[in-house]
């Protein structure tokens, strides 16, 4: 537990302190003996390589987070290494815990400073001063006024970490978390690596984002393990919660506006603030790559703005290296689940407010199961960039002048962003309920408990072969596991006459639009749990779909179809850019590994028992494929207006899809999700079927009917667009 962890750390530090000056940094004069952090921190690039070989279970290498073909043993190891944070909380005094000595290790080159000193450094910095002068020239305003403005922005934005507030949070969060969560599992090995990373180079923590709990939980864990509290980039909307916002700020959050595209001063102040913290290593900087909480349970595409800011100190040579730490936070049950489902159907997100938070107290009476927090292997930015980005780009423009990332830097950021999201996915822990939701949603309106148990167990086997880490309770009968999961999800599913059905399923007689939306809330809630496991299946499943669509046993044909599907769905699921062939290979490999596909000579065949797997996998993704077809077809509809905005498109598609559902023309309600609609529109834009124009009124979209026609055809009756370059690489 954390306690003995602290002891271990103190011992380790004692050992280090004994070494004396820098020269003695290596006792005995040999590198091999100690290297702070180095041994634990893997070279990020190596992770690209798929690891086919079996890995020694207890070595560090066994935890390679990015292994494309994770081994079963690895996942089990992973599970064993989790420690329950709450256990100790339940046994000892929260007050003493909150008041205990807090002395985190810090970055080796840290020059300590107060939050206000930090703010003044930022204000006086060259980039901020440069923009102030620029703006003064452009607007005719006096630089002093703009400078005041900048200082005001800083005041509103900056964190003001105070230990007393941290201790207050430590106390209250202990109470709250104990009520809400059964257990909070943390991988201590990851903590250990993070601790080493913090000392070595500036650290950027990149957690997955599924709930508001995320950053509270992370800071709580950091405090518990005596790590320096991260400075967190949080949305300005929190500031709506007066006192709470202020308190969050004192616990290390800093606030940014959601959008500040045109505001040069804001951008300059904000980016310099982040960079200043990173350069000096004041604290780890934490932000959400996904930009916002994922409402669907799937990972969102990485946003690159903050990532660019965070990486600039390295790209400009201001620091030797930095670490990106992917953190995967898996919830057995998400607090906001029903809120999300409503939002996805177009009910706007409620404004954050303190009174709202107080109202939300009622959730305290509910059980939200367990949380798994997995601190991934710190990834060295330098090793990611070596050979990919030429930093000499930055030589020709003074470093204080703001710039847009060049094309290759942008590509690099995009790749890194995707990579880290994939790393987050790999370390997600999957609860039994996720498997059950996957089965249930394929068997609507309902299925028997026995059938649910059977299919869930079958899916568990497949998922484990595919490398998922599943938090399946040991020494409990499967039946009991299923029953207790169902009990926890009483808001989504219920059991009637031994049939497991969705909650809203009992009034199927009259179908109105209103009823459909109500039903869809349940579907989406259920789907949001199924979505948590899709990243495990997406590659083999798309190969399976390609198999079914092409009716071919030629590898090239299947690859052609796969690559098209991957292209269409690449806003829906996170694929590493430029990793097409590897994705295909991985999908195929997993199908072969599970015994679903055989290879005889050069041909691929579905094995006898493989039919179940293949069809299960393709049905799993059918809601998306069908949804995309509906959305892609909509602009071909005669009523469709030529010019449209994203907003109008989504509203119209929703009505259109609802009608189709009413008439029974389509099977899956998920097409009503605004998330899917947005992603499909993005796909159309990417595929050139929709073009965007900037006008005075905003961004207008226009359909290119010819291209769209082709896109629709391809998706309906998937043909094999031969991608020569890619095929050649096969």
């Amino acid at each position, binding site marked *: 537990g954390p306690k003995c962890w602290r002891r271990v750390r103190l011992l380790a530090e004692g050992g280090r302190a004994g070494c004396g000056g820098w020269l003695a940094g290596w006792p005995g004069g040999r590198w091999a003996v100690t290297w702070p952090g180095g041994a634990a921190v893997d070279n990020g690039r190596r992770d690209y390589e798929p690891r086919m070989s079996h890995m020694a279970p207890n070595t560090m290498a066994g935890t390679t987070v990015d292994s494309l073909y994770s081994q079963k043993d690895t996942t089990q190891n992973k599970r064993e290494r989790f420690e329950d944070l709450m256990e100790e909380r339940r046994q000892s005094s929260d007050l003493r815990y909150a008041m205990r000595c807090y002395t985190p290790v810090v970055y080796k080159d840290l020059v300590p400073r107060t939050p206000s000193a930090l703010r003044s450094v930022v204000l006086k910095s060259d980039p901020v001063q440069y923009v102030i002068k620029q703006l003064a020239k452009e607007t005719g305003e006096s630089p002093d006024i703009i400078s005041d403005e900048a200082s005001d922005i800083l005041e509103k934005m900056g964190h003001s970490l105070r230990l007393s507030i941290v201790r207050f949070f430590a106390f209250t969060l202990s109470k709250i978390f104990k009520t809400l969560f059964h257990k909070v599992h943390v991988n201590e090995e990851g903590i250990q690596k993070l601790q080493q990373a913090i000392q070595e180079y500036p650290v950027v923590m990149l957690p997955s984002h599924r709930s508001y709990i995320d950053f509270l939980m992370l800071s709580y864990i950091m405090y518990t393990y005596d790590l320096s509290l991260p400075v967190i980039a949080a949305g300005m909307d929190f500031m709506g919660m007066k006192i709470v916002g202020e308190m969050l700020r004192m616990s290390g959050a800093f606030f940014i506006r959601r959008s500040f595209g045109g505001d040069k001063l804001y951008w300059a102040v904000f980016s310099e603030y982040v960079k200043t913290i990173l350069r000096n290593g004041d604290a780890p900087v934490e932000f959400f790559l996904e930009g916002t909480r994922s409402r669907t349970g799937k990972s969102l595409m990485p946003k690159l703005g903050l990532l660019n800011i965070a990486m600039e100190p390295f790209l400009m040579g201001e620091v030797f290296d930095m670490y990106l730490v992917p953190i995967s936070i898996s919830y057995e049950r998400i607090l906001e689940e029903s809120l999300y489902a409503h939002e996805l159907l177009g009910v706007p997100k409620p404004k954050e407010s303190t009174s709202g938070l107080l109202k939300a107290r009622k959730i305290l009476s509910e059980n939200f199961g367990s949380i798994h927090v997995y601190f991934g292997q710190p990834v060295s930015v330098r090793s990611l960039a070596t050979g990919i980005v030429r930093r000499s780009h930055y030589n020709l423009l003074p*470093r204080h002048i703001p710039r847009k990332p060049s094309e290759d830097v942008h590509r690099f950021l995009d790749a890194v962003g995707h990579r880290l999201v994939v790393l987050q996915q790999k370390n997600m822990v999957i609860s039994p309920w996720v498997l059950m939701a996957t089965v249930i949603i394929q068997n609507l309106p309902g299925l028997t408990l026995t059938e649910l148990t059977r299919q869930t167990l079958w899916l568990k086997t497949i998922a484990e072969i595919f490398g998922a880490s599943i938090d399946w309770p040991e020494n409990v009968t499967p039946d009991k596991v299923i029953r207790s999961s169902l009990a926890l999800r009483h808001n989504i599913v219920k059991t009637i006459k031994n049939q497991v059905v969705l909650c809203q399923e009992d009034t199927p007689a009259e179908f109105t639009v209103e009823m459909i939306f109500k039903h869809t809330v349940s579907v989406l809630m259920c789907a949001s749990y199924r979505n948590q496991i899709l990243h495990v299946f997406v590659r083999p499943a798309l190969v399976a779909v390609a198999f079914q669509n092409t009716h071919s046993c030629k590898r090239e044909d299947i690859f052609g179809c796969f690559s098209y599907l991957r292209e269409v769905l690449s806003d829906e699921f996170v694929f590493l850019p430029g990793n097409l062939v590897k994705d295909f290979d991985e999908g195929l490999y997993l199908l072969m590994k599970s015994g679903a596909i055989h290879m005889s000579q050069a041909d691929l065949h579905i094995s006898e028992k493989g039919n179940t797997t293949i069809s299960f996998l393709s049905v799993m993704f059918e809601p998306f494929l069908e949804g995309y077809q509906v959305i892609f077809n909509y602009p071909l509809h005669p009523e469709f207006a030529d010019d449209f905005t994203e907003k109008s498109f989504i509203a119209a598609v929703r009505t259109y899809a609802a009608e189709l559902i009413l008439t029974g023309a389509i099977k899956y309600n998920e097409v009503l999700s605004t998330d899917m609609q947005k992603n499909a529109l993005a796909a159309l834009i990417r595929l050139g079927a929709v073009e965007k124009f900037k006008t005075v009124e905003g961004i207008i979209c226009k359909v290119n009917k010819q291209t769209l026609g082709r896109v629709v055809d391809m998706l309906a009756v998937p043909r094999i667009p031969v991608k020569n370059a890619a095929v050649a690489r096969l």
Partner: protein
Amino acid sequence: PRHGPAPAFAAAVKAAGSADRSPLTPPHSQPQHGRMASEEREQPRARQRLRVMAGHLRRPGTGPAATSTAEPATATTTTTTTECPALEPAAADGAAKATGSIPRRRQEILKWNGWGYRDSKFTFNKKGQGEFTGKRYRLSGMVLPALKEWMEKSFGASLEHKTTPRTTPNLDLPLSILNEECLKDIKDLNIPFSQDPEDRLIRSHGHCLHEIFALREGKVQRVPDVVIWPSCHSDVVKIVHLASKHNVCIIPFGGGTSVSDALECPTDEKRTIVSLDTSQMNRIMWIDEKNLTAHVEAGITGQDLERQLSEYGYCTGHEPDSMEFSSLGGWVATRASGMKKNIYGNIEDLIVHIKMVTPRGIVEKSCQGPRMSTGPDIYHFIMGSEGTLGVVTEVTIKIRSLPEYQKYGSIVFPDFESGVACLREVARQRCAPASIRLMDNTQFQFGHALKPQVASIFTSFLDGLKKFYITKFKGFDPNELCVTTLLFEGTREKVLQQEKHVYDIAAKFGGLAAGEDNGQRGYMLTFVIAYIRDLGMDYYIIGESFETSAPWDRVLDLCRNVKEKLVKECKEKGVQFIPLATCRVTQTYDAGACVYFYFAFNYRGISDPISVFEQIEASAREEILENGGSLSHHHGVGKLRKRWLKESISDVGLGMLKSVKEYVDPNNIFGNRNLL
């Protein structure tokens, strides 16, 4: 003291005048006894100044005589030519040869397997104390008690683990490629030449680590087939003509101090390689006191040039760290930089006229105007051409009166950051003294390792007091503090004024004046430090220095990142001991600074140390380039840094250089394959 011109000079001047070898010869280059007489009372003072200036080079009392040698006698050399007009009377005089301190058989005074003079080297005496042998330098003959401990501490080296290099050069060379016809033509030139293995071997390398390492191991690759010693411009014209006729490859050789692989013979060169050693072209042809220029043969070494000019009260002020051995032509060919460039400028600022012999003919300008707008400056094709276009034979260089007053100085800073900030401010205010250098903490500690045994208890007490004051009273961290060394030159008044100015700026950045002695020691070490690598190599330590230049705002980041890169790379490449990675800022400019790195490690436990070293050095160079540093500040590109030239100067830029080469030397007679 002698009055009037030295005989050699007089001879040269007379010859220049009488032979009327150049229309550029100024009328007043004839000895003007009247004027000289008027300056007679100046002479003793000039000598005094000279001694001060040369103080860091050589102990007083050991004059040039110590280095002069008899005429070499090589079996294959022919008698001195009679076709160099300037030489004839001088040769008859018999003293002229003594003016050049490097004889044809350089190995008689210089090491064949390391840096510098044979009589000077670091060594450990029987008590295990460090010592520097010889009589040439201030440090010579002194005991260095801290050296051993420093080596043990910094490298994990031990006196017990000694390498066993060859004691004599490996003369088992591949046969000289030279056909009869060509040999006959060479003989007919009547220019001294040699096919002696030793002569050839010592002209097959510069002073890169791998070159010296190979010598010590006795590994020999391609070496020149013939060494030839032209005595004047027209000799060179003949040699180049002959080379073109026989399609022979010429590699010009000046001081042999290259650290960029520039002298290495391409291993796949099938043609005869002629090493054209310019060391005997070492006369000052004339001095023009009206325009303050001197016309000099390009083979003259820095120390000879300064010594001879100083006899007339002049100097060029160009003092690269290699000036004892490197030649004027070499400086031109590599775009050299001198320690005192703040006053005198770098080589490109000093050059007024260049004459270069190329396969296409002779290139030079027709006048000596101080600046011209006549298209791109053709001298800039020559400066930095690294022997790929031709041989620089004669140069007109600016001269200045010897400085009246010199003063050393030093400043201690609490850390490297404040030191750099101070240098930047000094540059901003354009008040940089002749030289200003900032050493990082590691180099400061290294400087301590080379401190001679203290003569008196009083001095050691004083040192202790100083240390106490700086570390305890002023609170400087001994593991952080940095030292800047200063050299002021000029009139006494100006020097004192400038000194105050610089110390005032330093005080603003937390710097404390640390005395003249420390400064002088710093500059003395400049020349001695080059010797230490040979000692290291005796104890499994290999090292190298490399340089760059960077904009001011990049200097700190670059220094930190490159040092860290070196350390990281060592670890990754399996080096068993933490390396020495240290730097100093050696030059300040308006827009940036020159940074010099020293990198060394103990290679015990590595099977292929040189290849590991080269990989690490290359990665450090990449780090430099990515941090906004240049490919080279003054070492040049040679073959060592060729691979990065394209990205440094763009495809088109490289194409421009190639097209010049194509025109000037279409048959690649100057085939050392540097640069391009």
